[in-house]
């Protein structure tokens, strides 16, 4: 058979040469039979719903474990729909007029899903899929069928399907799934996002004929980088793709090895490469990618998920959990960093013309000392036996910093008086994200044990540009000479005072920036966990001589584009 090429939407990177397993969901046949009493039928509904709740919780736990809370949250939404009074109420109405519960659930699911899918806005319409997923689950349980036909996959295969629900994707066995291709779906569909998080090659939107063109055991090549699928590839094609795959795999292997080692320049200078995280599950992710610590633990998630501020105990539990994952590696906890752009319901926010220049971060904490103290108590208590550090965001003035440190001391005294165990020697530092802080590092060093540069805000405030505004976002250039000068000034002034300095903005993980920052003498690079292996690998290839030269040259350019092109050219030579 001649080889045939198809093209879909590349959804998740990776090349696979292998055989197809066609996943066709079992059609749920609703038996025609007489209904029992209303109580009997509804009794079966409640039992099935309880069973469904346990199944969905299982999926939630599995996805949270494998991919993190953010990816798992879809199953929280499923739980909410499962216990929706509309589902139960409408099902009961149908049962009361004589339908069996199976018939009732099928009808209700269809009605509710059609209501949603008929809506103009795509955002709302997308929820119809979730309703169908949940309704189908209840029905399947009522019919006594097993969880998924995916259990029939017995050898490593490329899963081909019309579409995959979030439940389907979560149920894919990572040992038997080489990748997946779907006829429907887009790059932002939940399955595509999950595939990327799990590192599973995927192509979506292949078109309606997909399941006509392939069947079980069809031999194919799939390229998740380009969206190409080749059916019955000839030997030459297979060889070519196997070569590309081997090159890619060997680079990934190099990265894997780099990730496990301590970050060190080719000249032997040790720097720390850490992770930025915002929830417990990302701490595992950070460890897997070789983080030597947490350079930024965002705590906002604790404050935005409820209608009241998080209790001390809840915070203690979560900090403790993260510290324990990280063991003796340092974890920098950033105290609450919110503002009028993202106000929690329980804080009395004023009307603000400029929330980014307004009541936010440390400014709120100093005005709401009780809420601030609760967080500090939780951190200090959880820090016992671990290397925790506290970091204040958005500091622009020495008095602010002194005031915040006084509150830390008060909290320590309170804990001591109450004989509550806490760690007394937690270093306290600040984020350098306002030009004011960058220019005042020598002064702020009096009350700061360390500094960490937040390049996103520093760029925004230095360039006076909102990167969410498309008209001006072109000016958001973290490598702009003005920003670079403030970074260099921060590092120099901090070292002159004998304090270490890190960076937890996006710039710290950008390959174009790392050589310059190394040349400036940055001590710690904190980034998205996934960027760590590449960063460590790059650091290991650079000598101190090279980075000093690069940093010096970079400072001589007049625009960000010139700086970027210069570094890019050097990196290309290196590779």
């Amino acid at each position, binding site marked *: 058979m001649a080889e045939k090429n198809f093209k879909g939407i590349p959804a998740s990177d990776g090349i696979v040469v292998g055989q197809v397993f066609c996943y066709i969901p079992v059609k749920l046949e609703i038996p025609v039979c007489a209904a029992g009493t209303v109580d009997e039928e509804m009794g079966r509904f409640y039992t099935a719903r309880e069973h469904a709740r346990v199944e969905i919780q299982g999926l939630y736990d599995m996805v949270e474990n494998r991919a993190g809370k953010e990816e798992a949250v879809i199953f929280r*939404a499923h739980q*909410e729909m499962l216990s929706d009074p*509309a589902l139960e109420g409408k099902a009961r109405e149908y049962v009361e007029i004589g339908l069996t519960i199976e018939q009732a659930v099928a009808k209700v699911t269809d009605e509710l899903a059609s209501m*949603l899918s008929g809506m103009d*806005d795509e955002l*709302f319409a997308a929820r119809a899929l979730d309703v169908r997923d949940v309704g189908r689950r209840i029905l399947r349980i009522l019919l006594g069928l097993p969880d998924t036909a995916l259990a029939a996959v017995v050898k490593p295969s490329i899963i081909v399907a019309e579409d995959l629900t979030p439940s389907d994707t979560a149920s894919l066995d990572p040992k038997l799934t080489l990748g997946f291709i779907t006829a429907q779906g887009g790059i932002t569909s939940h399955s595509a996002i999950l595939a990327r998080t799990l590192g599973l090659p995927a192509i979506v939107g292949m078109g309606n004929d997909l399941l006509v063109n392939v069947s079980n055991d069809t031999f194919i090549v799939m390229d998740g980088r380009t969206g190409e699928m080749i059916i019955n590839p000839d030997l030459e094609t297979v060889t070519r793709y196997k070569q590309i795959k081997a090159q890619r795999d060997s680079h990934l292997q190099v990265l894997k090895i780099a990730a496990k080692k301590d970050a060190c320049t080719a000249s032997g200078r040790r720097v720390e490469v850490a992770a930025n995280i915002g929830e417990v599950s990302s701490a595992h992710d950070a460890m897997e990618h070789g983080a030597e610590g947490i350079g930024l633990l965002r705590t906002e998630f604790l404050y935005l998920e409820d*209608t009241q501020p998080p209790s001390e105990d809840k915070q203690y539990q979560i900090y403790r959990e993260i510290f324990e994952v990280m063991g003796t590696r340092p974890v920098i906890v950033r105290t609450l960093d919110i503002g009028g752009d993202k106000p929690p319901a329980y804080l009395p926010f004023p009307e603000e013309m400029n929330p980014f220049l307004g009541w936010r971060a440390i400014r709120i904490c100093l005005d709401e000392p009780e809420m601030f103290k609760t967080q500090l108590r939780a951190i200090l208590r959880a820090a016992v036996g671990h290397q925790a550090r506290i970091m204040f965001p958005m500091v622009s003035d020495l008095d602010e910093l002194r005031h915040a440190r006084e509150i830390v001391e008060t909290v320590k005294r309170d804990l001591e008086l109450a004989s509550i165990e806490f760690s007394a020697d937690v270093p306290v530092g600040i984020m350098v994200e306002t030009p004011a802080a960058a220019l005042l590092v020598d002064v702020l060093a009096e009350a700061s044990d360390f500094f960490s540069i937040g390049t996103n805000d520093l760029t925004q405030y230095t360039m006076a540009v909102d990167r969410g505004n498309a008209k001006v976002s072109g000016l958001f250039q973290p490598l702009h000479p003005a920003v670079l000068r403030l970074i260099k000034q921060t590092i120099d002034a901090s070292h002159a005072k004998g304090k270490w300095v890190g960076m937890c903005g996006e710039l710290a993980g950008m390959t174009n920036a790392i050589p310059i920052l190394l040349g400036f003498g940055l001590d710690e690079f904190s980034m998205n966990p996934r960027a760590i292996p590449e960063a460590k690998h790059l650091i290991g290839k650079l000598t101190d001589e090279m980075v000093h030269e690069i940093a010096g040259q970079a400072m001589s350019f007049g625009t960000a584009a010139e700086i970027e092109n210069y570094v890019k050219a050097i990196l290309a030579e290196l590779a």
Partner: protein
Amino acid sequence: MIEATIPVRNEVGLHARPAALFVKTAAKFSSTIKVKNLTTNGNFVDAKSIIMVLTLGVMKDHEVVIQSEGADADAALDALRALIENNFGEA
């Protein structure tokens, strides 16, 4: 029975997290709470049902009418009003 008309100003309207928060808040009260989208002039639906609240299709700058009836009707209406007026804690 008490009633209030409230404009929704947050970015995504009654969708995703704001919708979930709205329903969660409504579910804390024993009163019967109904809500409708005044802008599209739809029907009243159960404010404790996430699916029905989603079907209202409330977008930024739509107005909603909330009706509350029962022992804690006032507290329920106040809580939902505060939630909407504080933009559900988002932009």
